[in-house]
């Protein structure tokens, strides 16, 4: 029998989602800086132009704000579009169109605005203060937006397709360090079987503590958990996938079971999405919590460029394991002896990354 799944990188999965969607919806457009260039936005838009033509797939002027409004205008005429930005930071130019138009249009005028905005978060290799900011909590604060943050190829593909066919504006956030990460996806995509946006996934089952993570941190958490399992410390790991609307049920069910909560976040600490989760859980499940909830977030500073300054800057399996052990009040000082430290070099996602961008 043939296997129903295949191993694929996340950027290829995204590319497949775009091909699939453009085939399915003959009106769907795909544009943004770099969309048709030889590198195809880290390979995610490769061959789209060839396959679907210049009318539907095109490069654009550097005009992030207008382009966002243009995608809204298209959607009002029932033309969906995927607009890509190579860094989230560039998209700050477009907040007026995003918030005042895309997010509020349906509320104000009862006309849906199905657009998908892909934003890529940089990290490491000197990306520095203006190429690595993750503002997913900004987007989640805005009524009317949906916000998706996949952590693996399967989700990236499924959720991108779901985003595209959702009747609302969706912010789709890709972590640059995940692009080359491999994972299994179904060979065949059945659109009916895809989630509506708004489901978390339990990645590891466990009873002692609930860990909520998203994006790259899901992987760091898995490494930590795999390690801790050897010591019979079994935690539940939830991958958020979609942070707005949020699947509170899955998180609450898990916290009710474990009574302990650790939330990981790739954004700055103050007003991080982790804060939102801890706040809501504290409000609603106060009596279930055995210990104070804990978060592990990026500090309230931009990412510096220097290799020296980013050493120890990121959240690693060891940091996660430390928190877990502290929350669970495990005294054995030796447990953390062998856990994976920060790899060397620490500022690249893997040996495939040769810089510079």
């Amino acid at each position: 029998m043939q296997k129903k799944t295949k191993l694929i990188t996340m950027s290829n999965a995204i590319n497949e989602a775009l091909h699939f969607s453009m085939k399915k919806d003959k009106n769907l457009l795909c544009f943004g800086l770099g969309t048709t260039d030889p590198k195809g936005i880290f390979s995610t838009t490769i061959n789209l132009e060839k396959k679907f033509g210049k009318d539907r797939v095109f490069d654009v002027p550097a005009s992030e704000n207008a382009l966002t409004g243009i995608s809204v205008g298209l959607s009002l005429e029932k033309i969906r579009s995927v607009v890509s930005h190579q860094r989230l930071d560039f998209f700050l130019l477009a907040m007026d169109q995003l918030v005042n138009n895309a997010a509020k249009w349906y509320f104000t005028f009862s006309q849906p605005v199905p657009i998908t905005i892909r934003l890529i978060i940089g990290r490491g290799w000197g990306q520095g203060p203006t190429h690595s900011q993750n503002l997913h909590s900004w987007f989640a604060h805005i009524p009317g937006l949906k916000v998706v943050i996949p952590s693996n190829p399967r989700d990236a593909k499924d959720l991108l397709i779901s985003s595209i066919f959702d009747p609302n504006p969706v912010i789709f956030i890709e972590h640059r360090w995940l692009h080359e990460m491999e994972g299994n996806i179904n060979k065949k995509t059945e659109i009916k079987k895809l989630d509506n946006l708004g489901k978390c996934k339990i990645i590891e089952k466990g009873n002692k503590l609930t860990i909520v993570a998203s994006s790259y941190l899901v992987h760091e958490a898995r490494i930590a958990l795999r390690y801790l399992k050897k010591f019979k410390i079994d935690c539940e790991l939830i991958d958020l996938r979609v942070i707005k609307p949020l699947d509170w049920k899955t998180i609450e069910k898990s916290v009710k079971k474990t009574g302990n909560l650790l939330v990981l976040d790739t954004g700055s600490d103050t007003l991080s999405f982790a804060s939102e989760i801890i706040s809501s859980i504290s409000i609603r499940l106060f009596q279930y919590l055995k210990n104070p909830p804990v978060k592990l977030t990026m500090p309230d500073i931009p990412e510096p460029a220097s290799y020296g300054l980013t050493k120890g800057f990121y959240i690693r399996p060891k940091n996660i394991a430390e928190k877990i052990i502290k929350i669970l009040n495990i005294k054995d000082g030796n447990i953390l002896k062998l856990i994976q430290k920060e790899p060397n070099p620490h500022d690249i996602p893997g040996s495939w990354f040769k810089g510079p961008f």
Partner: protein
Amino acid sequence: MKKNSLISIWKNIFRIRYVEEKIAKEYYKGEMRCPTHLSIGQEAVPSVLDQFIQKTDLAVSGHRAHAHYLAKGGDLKKMLCEIFGKENGCAKGRGGSMHLIDRSVGFAGSTAIVANSIPIGVGIALAKKLKKKKDIVIIYFGDGAIEEGAFYESINFAILKKLPVFFICENNFYSVYTPLKYRQPKDRKIHKMVKGLGCPVFSTDGNDPFKIYEKISAAVKKIRSGKGPIFGEFYTYRHREHCGPNFDDNLNYRPKNDLKYWLEKDPLISLEKKIKKKKMIFLNMKNEKQKIINEVNEAFKFARKSKYPSYKITTRDIYAKKN
């Protein structure tokens, strides 16, 4: 200009004027509770444009949109209900005067942030072009809006993609109380500046229906032929305060001479004068006026009588549902 057109233009102008004057007169009662930017003095352009466009042509506008909405055929009752905050409002009472919409006649929406419907209009035009429709898109905005980067980015894109957009700049020389000289280079002519961007342009007296007619006639034809966007600058003047029902020239922010000049060029009065001078007494002007007055009064009554939205707005109203 054919007689029929003239009649229809005059009707448009008179009707808009009457609606706006009535809003102004009754605003003090505190029933129309929203920021309201009246079109009085600026009725001519949309009233003439109406001659050249169909329902399938779409229009977007900004904060001062009553005239654009009405001339496009937007439902008067729904507009008034919106201003009164009633559930029959064209935006269900969610938007108020600055957020008008009537998709059934091609009024695609007006928004309240300066210049922010311009990219929306360009996006709509891209859709029209991709669908190989002959329709055009009208984007209305003021002399202040062209100062926003959003305008510049949008028109660049429209030119680049040869989109069927009619950019209509109603230059009334002011952004709120601020005259052009504090905002734009001395001696700039906006349309000439836009020409430099690569867009065919024209300018004309925005209070003179005959001149407008001629210019718009040619422009719409050209845009419809697929040659790309055109930018028209129409000089005009608002009679009342920027936002609200009153006159505010006691504040002395506009030169008395200008004011006098423009009040004499009131599009309604001067058009009626011309009509009379040319002895173009058609049908029965008085009768026509009365019909409009009745219609408008009726609509106000309707709006007053209409209910406030009875539902409680909740977070369920925030997302569109899949169908």
